């Protein structure tokens, strides 16, 4: 059993490696959900402010990184300003790193085009508090400068100055954004989440409590396609398809083998009785 499992691990590594090295360039279809999220951000007027919350752990960066990068790039290209923050301590440095990298590539200036507020624990208090006063929750930014000392910091007083909140999450944080920012302050929320979380958030899309959802590496690839700028999401899609193909083959083979063994056992039982 353990030996078989190791063969499966090896086959999976081989499938992913082969796809990453040779990149067959399989087509990626764009789902209506991702198209809708793209449309929502695309419809924002230049100078609008999007709040991006890095609500994830470092371990989910392979999925969240490409997704966040595509959304940040879209905002910056549209001339939409970004207020970044983290409600998970592990997302703090990752969020700042992502924003500063994209900003430097696209020539966006810290203080006027984007700011980073840093980390706050107790997400409930933080989300609710920002509805009253963002400066009341974050008196200073990540760099320690008073919030009012930057042009963008002065412009954002509470959710009324934020056009959209994007929660980059690998857990249940978008639910809290819905409960405290959407339900109470009618803020529009977009969940950019790992694929594993999709089924948890679809009901919130149906009820329109969430403005939109874009999920996983596939969501990142779709978003990159819409942006016309292939990146880590698109690069990973060939490997994702190869891995899924292998898993499907293994499931069929495993079931066929189980069915064969069961039939053999029944035949033997019939012969002995």
């Amino acid at each position: 059993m353990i030996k078989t499992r190791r063969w499966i691990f090896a086959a999976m590594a081989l499938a992913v490696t082969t796809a990453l090295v040779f990149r067959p360039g399989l087509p990626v279809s764009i789902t209506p959900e991702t198209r809708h999220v793209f449309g929502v951000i695309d419809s924002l007027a230049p100078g609008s402010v999007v709040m991006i919350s890095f609500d994830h752990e470092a371990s989910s960066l392979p999925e969240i990184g490409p997704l966040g990068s595509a959304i940040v790039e879209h905002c910056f290209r549209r001339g939409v300003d970004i207020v970044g923050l983290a409600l998970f301590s592990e997302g703090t440095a990752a969020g700042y790193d992502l924003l500063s990298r994209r900003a430097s590539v696209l020539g966006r200036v810290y203080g006027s085009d984007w700011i980073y507020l840093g980390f706050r624990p107790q997400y409930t208090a933080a989300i609710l508090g920002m509805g009253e006063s963002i400066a009341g929750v974050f008196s200073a930014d990540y760099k320690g400068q008073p919030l009012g000392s930057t042009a963008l910091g002065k412009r954002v007083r509470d959710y009324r100055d934020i056009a959209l909140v994007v929660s980059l999450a690998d857990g249940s944080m978008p639910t809290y954004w819905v409960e405290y920012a959407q339900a109470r302050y009618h803020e529009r929320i977009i969940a950019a989440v790992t694929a594993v979380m999709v089924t948890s958030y679809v009901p919130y899309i149906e009820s329109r409590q969430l403005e939109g959802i874009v999920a996983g590496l596939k969501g990142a690839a779709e978003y990159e396609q819409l942006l016309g700028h292939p990146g880590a999401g698109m690069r990973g899609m060939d490997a994702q398809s190869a891995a899924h193909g292998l898993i499907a083959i293994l499931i069929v083979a495993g079931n066929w083998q189980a069915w064969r063994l069961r039939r053999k056992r029944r035949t033997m039982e019939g012969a002995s009785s």
Partner: protein
Amino acid sequence: MSWEISITAILTLAIYSFLAGDNPFYRFAEHLLVGLTIGYTLVVTVKSVIWPEAIQPIARGEVGAAIPLVLGALILLRLIPRWAGWSRIPLALIVGGGAGVAIPAMLKARVLDQMAATVAGASTWSGWFILIGVVTTLTYFVFTRAQTGGWGTSARLGRYFMMAFFGATFAYTVMSRVALLIGRLEFLLGNWLGLLRS
């Protein structure tokens, strides 16, 4: 290739070595991860919260900022059995305040709004499908009535809806885990070994 990339790559391989069985390299990398995560969280919390929101205001003479700090310190008294009772004060505030804030918000967002959307959505085919899914799944969880006859059929249908949900969730989980593997292999093959074209 920078030494940071090499260290990251070696630690990644150490973690993946668990696939061949438990070993000292894996355990070292795992302990390092746990220690670093706790240390990082502590530093971020002190730098982003305790220092600017408590220590600095107190140093400026804002006495009010000391109240949450003192309440936070009282929780730590749980570690001293003689004074452990003091920790109940901040815990009572957290539980009471937390429940007061959370219960109405959760009730509205997770129950009332969801129910309203389920009923309002029944004007379309997919809305009807969702409504039937919700009702039949709820009948499955009524344990005070025997699941026989029409009620049993409804409960069975609800079980099929749940099975479809579990299947979809599991497929998304597989997709998510594969994405993590891709991220790591891309790092090892590209950033570390330079085998991937950009």
